[in-house]
């Protein structure tokens, strides 16, 4: 019976991913597209995804923007505050590698230089459909991780 409860918890981890979204120096294009996913047109709440604004409540961190030397500490702080298990999604060209701004003096150049990233979603700005795909892919990674820890 205990295993049934554990199975239910594992299944629920995939059915209820709560988001926190952080803009790490983005032009806001990707942020607008991310928030567009919550609108009736794309409606990610049907997958159980809720935009809780609190890293302590969230499972998935979506980061947009190139990281710069000022906000890399904030990004690390938010990552540290999130309880395990968590998935980090880098959204948009700037988040992947710094985009067109990567040569600038203040740009760190990509989120994975500060925190470990699980899913990379390209685009400038990222399409809402691509982002939703990215979250589902992140959930797939979580499922694999669950299988590995169970085995």
């Amino acid at each position, binding site marked *: 019976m205990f295993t049934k409860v554990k199975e239910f918890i594992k299944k629920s*981890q995939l*059915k209820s991913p709560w988001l926190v979204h952080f803009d790490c120096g983005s032009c806001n294009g990707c942020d607008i597209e991310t928030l567009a996913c919550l609108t009736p047109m794309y*409606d990610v*709440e*049907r997958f159980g995804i809720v935009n*809780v604004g*609190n890293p302590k*409540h969230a499972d998935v961190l979506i980061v947009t923007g190139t990281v710069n030397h000022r906000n890399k500490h904030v990004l690390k702080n938010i990552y540290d505050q999130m*309880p395990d298990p968590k998935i980090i999604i880098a959204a948009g060209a700037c988040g992947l590698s710094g985009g067109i701004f990567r040569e600038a003096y203040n740009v760190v150049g990509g989120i994975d230089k500060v925190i470990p990233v699980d899913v990379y979603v390209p685009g400038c700005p990222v399409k809402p459909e691509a982002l939703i795909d990215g979250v589902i892919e992140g959930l797939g990674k979580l499922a694999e991780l669950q299988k590995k820890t169970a085995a």
Partner: protein
Amino acid sequence: MIWPFVLALLGMLAAPFIGGFISGVDRKLTARFQSRKGPSIFQAFYDVAKLFGKETVISHRLQPLCIYIYLASAALSVGLFFAQSDLLLIFFIQAAGAVFLVIGAYLVPSPYSQIGANRELFQILAYEPLVIIVIAGISLVTGSFKISDVYAYETPLLMKLPLLFIVLGYALTIKLKKSPFDISGSHHAHQEIVKGVYTEYSGSLLALIEIAHFYETVLILGLCSLFWSTGVIGFALLLFLTYLLEIIVDNISARLTFRWMLGSVLITGVTLSSINLIWLYAA
């Protein structure tokens, strides 16, 4: 002699499932009103289970104790309600628990938590007088504070105390933290001061808070059920329409300030109840 204990236990075991199901239906209906599909009606259970599987991160070592007390008082008040005990006792037990939620949030020096706790105190200050007035009104009409006597009353209380039911509706909206009263931290997608009074909780503690919220939902709907205790159809219809109205009000209103909440709700609540009771006893 043993029967009330059995009822209380059954109530305490069933209420989280009832409350979770109501919460799921709430989110589904809200989504439909917003032209979306919305989550599954069992989503609340997935959320609670997922939270139990997360790491619990706390900032102060007494936070778990506060949440255990909050959950225990919410569960106990529902158990007592199912055992058809005294209304005032039920009210004071759930009030004591609600204060522990505030204490738990005050323990952490985070500004969101502090402001959230402050605002939660204002919300408690707003709904508690209303519920006391409603309970006093019920006892004036039925002559007793015990739920068993209220349920045994011949005519539906809604006929004699309609304005008091509206006052209870205000208290329900504030207690469930639905707009325009989601001031201290509301459910799920609403944010103001991050998550207000719930900010510094995570993992299993947050799951326990969700379960306590299910218990509170069942308790408040139970209080609403006192107003039509003479027939099953009227009972069910009243609860369904009340909760539907809550969801509609939630969707059509925006969050307002705590000053407005205190001023308007207390004045409206006292005025409506005075009118009802004066009409009943003086006219």
